[in-house]
């Protein structure tokens, strides 16, 4: 070996050793964070922040910036902790999220956290995709809105609401039963296929409550939409901001927080108003979960702590969604009062209902089998 090569080898050796030294603490800490079931396991919130900052990045998926104020959520988190948030496939579905978690396993691009429909949270838990973790505010989350070991937990939600263009719909419908009135012929749309779009499924489920089927018998809801179709009131156009703003779907069913956003965006084009139907107050929410052995385990846990802090919950609230800790925050007086005031009004005595998982599974498979033969 020539002298020059020896020097080079020496430099390379030192560099390698240095990089290993630099990597080791992070690596060891990462594994510590990866098994942390609460912030306590890594020396409290301060310890978690330190580890998360060292990871520098966080991978999130399927979070549209204009959905439930996720844009502000991501920006605030990134700025507060100096962590770069990589947002993949913002318009993806829950199924896309689960698929990404599986196919990107072991890669640096694998999502660290997911925001999915509850059915997908349950599926992921069954398949061992999630890591259990309990945020500091765990106690504020209602018992039936979380998995007992902390594999997943509801994050925010809203009520199924009827949105309508007040210019075109002179007598606004107030309930599901109203929608059958001949006056609404050719006017009522869902936001898609109930076997694919969660809000559309929830609207069918809610109409089951309105028609005496409750949460156990969704066929009553399917019957209702079959009648709507027969009467010509139901137009099976996928309601989107484009169809709403161009006046092609004068009445739509969707989550109240999305309806509220429609009315903001459509200002000047259509006079979009919304009402939560009086005969079915149906609450639907999404769930958070941390991906097991994801590339940034500490940042993933810090993200959850942030989402479930008063600050994070108020950001969702500002987006018109109802964060899961809202009742507790109202009690403590930490909820953003003006944001609460601008929330869509719900009928008096409306309380959130969480349909049992078995009921939901049955309801979904019935919709998948029967919707096409309405």
């Amino acid at each position, binding site marked *: 070996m020539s002298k020059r090569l020896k020097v080079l080898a020496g430099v390379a050796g030192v560099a390698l050793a240095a990089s290993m030294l630099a990597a080791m603490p992070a690596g060891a800490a990462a594994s510590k964070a990866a098994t942390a079931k609460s912030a306590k396991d890594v020396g409290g919130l301060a310890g978690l922040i330190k580890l998360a900052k060292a990871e520098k990045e966080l991978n999130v998926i399927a979070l549209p910036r204009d959905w439930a104020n996720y844009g502000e959520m991501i920006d605030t988190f990134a700025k507060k902790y100096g962590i770069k948030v990589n947002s993949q496939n913002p318009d993806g*579905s*829950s*199924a*896309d999220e*689960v*698929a990404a978690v599986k196919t990107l396993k072991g890669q640096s691009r694998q999502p660290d956290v997911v925001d999915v*429909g509850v*059915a*997908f949270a*349950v*599926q992921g838990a*069954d*398949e061992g995709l999630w890591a259990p973790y309990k945020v500091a505010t765990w106690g504020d989350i209602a018992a039936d809105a979380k998995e007992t070991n902390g594999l997943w937990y509801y994050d925010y939600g809203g009520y199924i609401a009827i949105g309508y263009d007040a210019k*075109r719909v002179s007598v606004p419908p107030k309930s599901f039963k109203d929608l059958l009135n001949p006056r609404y012929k*050719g*006017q009522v*749309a*869902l936001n*898609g*296929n*109930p*076997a*694919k*779009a*969660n809000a*559309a*499924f929830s609207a069918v489920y809610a109409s089951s409550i309105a028609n005496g089927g409750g949460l156990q018998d969704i066929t009553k809801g399917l019957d209702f939409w079959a009648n709507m*179709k027969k009467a*010509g009131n139901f*137009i*099976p*156009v*996928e309601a*989107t901001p*484009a*169809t709403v703003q*161009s*006046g*092609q779907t*004068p009445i739509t069913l969707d989550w109240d927080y999305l309806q509220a956003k429609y009315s903001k965006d459509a200002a000047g084009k259509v006079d979009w108003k919304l009402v939560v139907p009086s005969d079915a107050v149906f609450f639907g929410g999404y769930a958070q979960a941390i991906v097991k052995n994801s590339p940034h385990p500490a940042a993933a846990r810090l993200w959850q702590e942030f989402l479930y802090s008063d600050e994070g919950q108020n950001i969702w609230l500002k987006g018109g969604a109802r964060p899961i800790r809202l009742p507790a925050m109202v009690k403590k007086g930490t909820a953003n009062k003006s944001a609460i005031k601008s929330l869509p009004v719900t009928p008096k005595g409306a309380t959130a209902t969480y349909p049992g998982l078995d009921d939901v599974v049955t309801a*979904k*498979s019935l*919709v*998948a*089998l*029967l*919707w*096409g*033969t*309405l």
Partner: protein
Amino acid sequence: MTSAAMRSTSETTTGGNPGRGSLNGPLRSLRTYIGLFPFFIYSGFFLAIPTLQVMILAFRNQDNGWTLDNVKEAVAGVYLLSFQQSLWLSAISAITGAIFGFIAAYAITVSNIRILRRVIQTASGVFANTGGVPLAFFFIASIGTYGLLTTALKKIGIDLYSGGWTLFTFSGLVLVYLYFQIPLMIIVILPAIDGLRLEWREAAGSLGASKWQFWRYVAIPLLAPAFTGALLLLFANSFAAYATASALTSGTIPLVPLQIGSLVSGNVIADKANLGYALGFGMVVIIGFVMAGYAILQRKTAKWLGN
């Protein structure tokens, strides 16, 4: 300058490079195919591997074991109905599109107006590739319940929706599909109609054939393979269409691509992705048959077109 250029051209055309001809067999064919490598790599990654994956996943269960359940479920109940509806929709829209497209293409050829031909060919190229949500929206905004045309016609006393018809039914979907089917037919059938030489008609005429006899014994037998081939292409084209139907019907008409969308990439059904792959496998099989038929007919057409 000019003479030099001419010389080099003549050299290459007369086989001035003797080394080229003396390459032995396998090496030569390798050289011929090397230009195709990018294509092979591309179609391998984006066609062969995904297709293979769909075929394998169709026979997998949730726990990665092997099973026939998905395939069995895919050909029963609502999924069988979806296959029927998809086949029916594709057949009707292909046949209607082929007939209208053929008539239009024939009219263009017969008219022999150069500019008309160019305009229609270019426009067809654009329309044949219009699809998805925008196409659905065109129709909703024009002849939907509150479409511009619907409202305008209502003012002069014509109500599109009085007879119970809507854009969101099976026939409505056929109408929307014709928007891309007719132009596609024009594009693929024009060369075949061009191949029908004027001299043949004149020859037939001078031998005493009537117009009907010309069509019956000359034109139709010659055009049949091209027409059927185009028909199959149109069939495959609408068989796989997804976004337009999705935006227009919200799944109220069961079609296989819509079912796959719900099962594989939805927000509602959580653990039935493999059933979706089984449906995809079914589509691959059907398209395989269609494409095999298309290839056979294509060969026949190419023969008499003299290529």
